């Protein structure tokens, strides 16, 4: 992959607002943001209800994903352009999710909703109508999804990249600082993980830094480019942002997102945990 294949600018989106084969999809942490105004023609996916199984902690299955996209009017040959607030955290999560189920042509709007707003571009309240389709998903591509056992096995052997803020990494905070801190799990990080906050990959306006800058950031943080990599955060959305950088922008092979992330790992019985600012020993 490359920047050209996976990222589009706000200008490109404006030029394609009336292109019927381009589907804009807003995915926000704040699931009400879309309702207050969205890019013209954009549809909404709610990450809590549309993309999560409502009983088990897992994603919707292939049949549910097919039904969802069919009902929302997304076709297999559509170009899907995702954007959202919070510097595209949940849009990147949805991007990874679309890749997981094998959608061919999916892109992120560089800078997401924030860049769009800071540019004072138009947001509308009008809801689009798209004709239903018959969407066919692929089986999950598990080469980009990490589970807990392989994450534990990666300690000391693969690149583990903890993309949370330094205070979460060290165990001083349990959640991002815009959320209440009443989580029940242990604080800290997976031993040997490098702390490269997702935000290092983004400019203040939410756009991604240049490829050269990105490569330098992860190299300096100790990422060994010859090894496989697992990225994690708290629930897998910020690490999707970093997965996007490593896999899609920098073209690194064998990068997985551990969507169980700290809310799973920090609640496991018996696994090692490191506290403080250093990666810690295997």
């Amino acid at each position, binding site marked *: 992959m490359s920047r050209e294949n996976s990222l589009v600018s706000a200008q490109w989106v404006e030029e394609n607002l009336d292109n019927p084969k381009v589907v804009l999809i807003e995915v926000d942490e704040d699931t009400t943001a879309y309702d207050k105004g969205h890019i013209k023609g954009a549809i909404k996916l709610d990450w809590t209800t549309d993309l999560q199984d409502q009983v088990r902690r897992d994603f919707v299955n292939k049949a549910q994903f097919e039904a969802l996209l069919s009902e929302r009017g997304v076709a297999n040959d559509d170009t899907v352009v995702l954007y959202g607030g919070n510097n595209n955290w949940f849009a990147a999560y949805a991007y990874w999710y679309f890749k997981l189920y094998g959608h061919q042509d999916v892109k992120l709007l560089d800078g997401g909703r924030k860049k769009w707003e*800071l540019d004072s571009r138009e947001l509308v309240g009008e809801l689009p109508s798209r004709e239903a389709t018959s969407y066919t998903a692929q089986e999950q591509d598990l080469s980009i999804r990490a589970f807990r056992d392989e994450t534990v096995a990666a300690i000391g052997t693969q690149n583990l990249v903890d993309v949370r803020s*330094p205070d979460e990494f060290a165990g001083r905070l349990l959640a991002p600082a*815009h959320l209440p801190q009443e989580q029940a799990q242990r604080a800290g990080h997976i031993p040997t993980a490098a702390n490269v906050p997702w935000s290092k990959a983004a400019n203040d306006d939410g756009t991604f830094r240049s490829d050269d800058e990105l490569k330098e950031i992860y190299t300096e943080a100790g990422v060994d480019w010859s090894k496989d990599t697992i990225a994690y955060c708290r629930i897998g959305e910020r690490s999707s942002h970093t997965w996007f950088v490593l896999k899609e922008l920098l073209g690194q092979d064998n990068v997985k997102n551990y969507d169980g992330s700290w809310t799973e790992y920090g609640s496991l019985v018996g696994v090692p945990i490191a506290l403080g600012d250093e990666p810690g020993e295997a």
Partner: protein
Amino acid sequence: MCGATEGGLSLNGINTDIEAIVQGQVTKGGEPVSTGYVRLLDRTGEFTAEVPVSATGHFRFFAGDGEWTLRTLVPGAEPVDRKVQAAVGSIAEVEIAV
């Protein structure tokens, strides 16, 4: 603690005894800013969190004990930084004019 929600964001359902809350309002020319962002930087200047302001310009973070920096991102205005001291069990109110 009194007046923490006056004209601002509701604290319903939040146990303020265990949170180090930093909150406030962003204004421009004396009027609340309805489109913009506030980010929270840690003591080393590293990004920790970011929120969009509410329709009334309000924002809130759940930080930890210590010194933090708030930085505004508002269309048509230069970013403004404000240092703030947070402590568990208290609410730090910060008004920011851009």
